[in-house]
């Protein structure tokens, strides 16, 4: 009998913890850029590896930054 392959997903290092940031600010575009794809989309939590609460803060910050033209709504790369 072949054993079913059990995948152990690798725990991602939390990028907010490493940067020692408690509250995400929409003005910190350098940080927020880590959480958007090259097309300008917000990266999913399974990609970013942050907690639910942090992901929410990030999403809100990105949306605020977009409103103030600090981040693109969509970049037409490709």
């Amino acid at each position: 009998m072949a054993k079913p392959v059990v995948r152990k997903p690798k725990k991602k290092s939390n990028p907010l913890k490493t940067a020692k940031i408690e509250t995400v600010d929409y003005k910190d575009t350098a940080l927020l850029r880590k959480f958007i794809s090259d097309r300008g989309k917000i990266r999913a939590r399974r990609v970013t590896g942050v907690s639910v609460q942090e992901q929410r803060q990030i999403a809100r910050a990105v949306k605020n930054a977009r409103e103030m033209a600090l981040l693109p709504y969509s970049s037409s790369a490709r």
Partner: protein
Amino acid sequence: MRQYEMMVILDPEVEERTVAPSLEKYLSVISAEGGSVDKVDIWGRRRMAYDIAKKSEGIYAVVDFTATSDTAKELDRQLGLNEAVLRTKILRTDAR
């Protein structure tokens, strides 16, 4: 009284050295209604991620102030009427 943080994008055609005095003029409504301006940070000219009002650049400024909600609303209204202001965003910093 609440703490607010406001970001404004000004028209890039406004001359750089007139930014501070004109910003002061826009903010006079805060002190007139009993609030206080705590910090004014002018970022200067900056390229925007997309065009606003057919302009690709804007002069950014961030203002921290303490005021009542009515004052904040009035300030937002006045800036919205101003031709030299492309966009504003007022957020409460004491929330969360």
